[in-house]
């Protein structure tokens, strides 16, 4: 701390010396430049002068800057400015940090809601409840991030890409739910099998071949599936699964369409338009052919 006051004048002295030398250098350079140009034709000289003028202005600028810097008061000001740089960076980084913390905080709040949501479900049906909880959390919390309005020239491409990621996430959950529904009869059939085997054991008529157990189980499983497949719950899961498969396919196709547009190949949309026209034309031609044939036959 005690050495600081003695350092500042030394730094100022160095700055002044550097600025004075610098101003002297640019002045000499400016004076030397025209002499370096040999005799040239008038038009070319005129052309060269434009560049010379620009160079002169630049050198004069440097000279003025150096001269100013040589002034002790100005040097002090520059140094003070330099000392404010860390403060500037500090404030800048602070703002960035706070924004980051805010985002992090939001994410934590979202994560906190996971707990709140899961709490509301029963844990005796934990797998299904978890799937439901995850779906709701995703749809209500995370999905919003893929729906942030996109801006600028590439906004539509970005929007479609976001939609694809979003639909992929939804599809994953839906498939998991559907597979879980399909797994239920397997679980239940094992329970029923256990009960039946227990009952048979008590009666002393336990099957002795593994195949008999298997046959019994498959029969029970088949029955459970038949019941499940007619249930409104299954129909709803099936409908939802098909819907999400469709949605994902549409989103995927749109992104692929964007990519294809950059390649020298026709897109599906363009081909479909062509197919429709081809279909209509062929139909019309076939009708006309039949009419001509009938007319020809009638004529003969």
């Amino acid at each position, binding site marked *: 701390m005690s050495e600081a006051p003695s350092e500042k004048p030394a730094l100022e002295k160095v700055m002044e010396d550097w600025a004075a030398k610098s101003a002297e250098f640019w002045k000499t350079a400016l004076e030397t430049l025209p002499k370096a140009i040999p005799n040239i034709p008038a038009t070319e000289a005129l052309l060269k002068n434009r560049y010379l003028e620009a160079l002169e202005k630049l050198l004069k600028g440097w000279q003025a800057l150096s001269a100013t810097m040589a002034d002790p008061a100005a040097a002090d000001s520059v140094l003070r400015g330099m000392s404010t740089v860390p403060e500037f960076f500090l404030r800048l980084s602070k703002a960035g940090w706070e924004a980051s913390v805010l985002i992090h905080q939001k994410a934590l709040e979202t994560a906190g809601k996971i707990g709140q949501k899961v709490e509301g479900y029963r844990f005796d049906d934990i797998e299904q409840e978890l799937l439901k909880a995850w779906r709701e959390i995703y749809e209500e919390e995370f999905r919003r991030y893929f729906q942030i309005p996109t801006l600028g020239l590439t906004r539509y491409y970005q929007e479609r890409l976001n939609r694809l990621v979003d639909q992929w996430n939804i599809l994953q959950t839906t498939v998991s739910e559907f597979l879980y529904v*399909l797994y239920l009869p397997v679980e239940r059939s094992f329970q029923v099998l256990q009960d039946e085997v*227990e009952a048979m*054991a*008590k*009666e*002393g008529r*336990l099957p*002795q*071949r*593994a*195949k008999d157990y*298997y046959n019994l189980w*498959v029969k029970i*499983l*088949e029955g459970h*599936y*038949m019941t499940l*497949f*007619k249930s409104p719950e299954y*129909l709803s899961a*099936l*409908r939802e699964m*098909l*819907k999400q498969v*469709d949605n994902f*396919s*549409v989103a995927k196709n749109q992104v692929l369409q964007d990519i294809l547009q950059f390649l020298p190949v026709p897109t*599906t949309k363009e*081909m*479909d338009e062509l*197919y*429709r026209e*081809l*279909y209509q034309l*062929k*139909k019309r031609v*076939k009708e006309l052919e039949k009419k001509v044939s009938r007319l020809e036959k009638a004529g003969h």
Partner: protein
Amino acid sequence: MEQPKISLDLILANLAAEAEKAQETVSRAVDVLLGPLDSALATTPYDVVYQEDRVKLKHYRSPGGVTFKTPLLVTYALINRETMLDLQPDRSVVQTFLNGGIDLYMIDWGYPTRKDRFLTIGDHVNGYMDNIVDFIRERTGVDKINLMGICMGGTFCVIYTALHPEKIKNLVTTVTPTNFDTNQGLLHIWMRAIDVDHLVDTFANLPGDVMNIGFLLLNPARLMLDKYVGFFENMANKAFVENFVRMERWIFDSPDVPGETFRQFVKDLYIKNLLIKNELEIDGQRVDLRRITMPLLNFYGLYDHLVPPEACSLLTSRVGSTDTEDIALDTGHIGIYVSSKSQREFAPKIIRWLRERDGEEEGAVAEEGKKEEAPGAAPPPPGEARAASRGPVKKGPTRKGVPKAPLKKIIEETL
């Protein structure tokens, strides 16, 4: 508490024996699976005599010669392939027909591509089918041909015959859905549950693989598990493996279904059930089942989980024909064509039935049927009077004058 009487030592001994047996099966199966296997299907020779876009018309070569005056056109569904009728030489409806002297034509719908997405039921029925029927009529020099439909192809045949009755002499429908207002089959329940517009708008055509998943889910315990357990148990048996592989090849050979056809089929038939109500419109023409006045033979399987009996059995009571017969076989959707029992009952019965009607004059059957009505009585709505005289499931021919031949006799005569 009573102790369960479990002979654990016996169970364990059995398990050990079964494990040894399985090991032996696997070692023998390796030889079978690595050796040459004959799993070719649809080997009966034919010529493609007509083609329009992807659709081909097969004409089978008859080794023993043709003894029928009227050619038979078989129309398969757009789902899976017509090769099922010629799965293997000893289980081939095609070969039985040829041996019976039938001049046999069959439509091969081919593999629709995205280009075919806009084709409607009308394009199939009034377009391809009608052109093919005209081609056969011209080629063979007959005014009318016999028409046989399978599953969805049967529905097309019913629609076609109602729209063009003047070109059809006899109609045979097999496992053909015409009444869609039933909850007997899962397919009927599911079709009403799906959003067909969303599906077609997304995929353009209904992908064959999507359909296959749907069919497997109809009975996952049997179709995705038990079937392959059965294969594992028998994979040392070469003949079994060959038949199994042949069936697998057929079952997963699933062309896509043209999108607009599928949309129309689901909406107008599965959901609105318009065909049986005579309210279906194809290319602006109403499909009136009462215009089906030619003889009709209607087969269905009692254990058909895809097209249940309730979906098939109403047809004969709704058509205008007085010569109808329902035959309910003790089998399922595919078993009707490929099971060894059906090989003895199904195709021979068709041959006999067609032969009995091969030489008759047009309209004779209908006229004869009308004579049975009481003089002066108001004509009942088509089918109603006849329905009263028939049993609910297995019915004999209602046409008077046609002797009821015992099935055994029919088989002996035909084969």
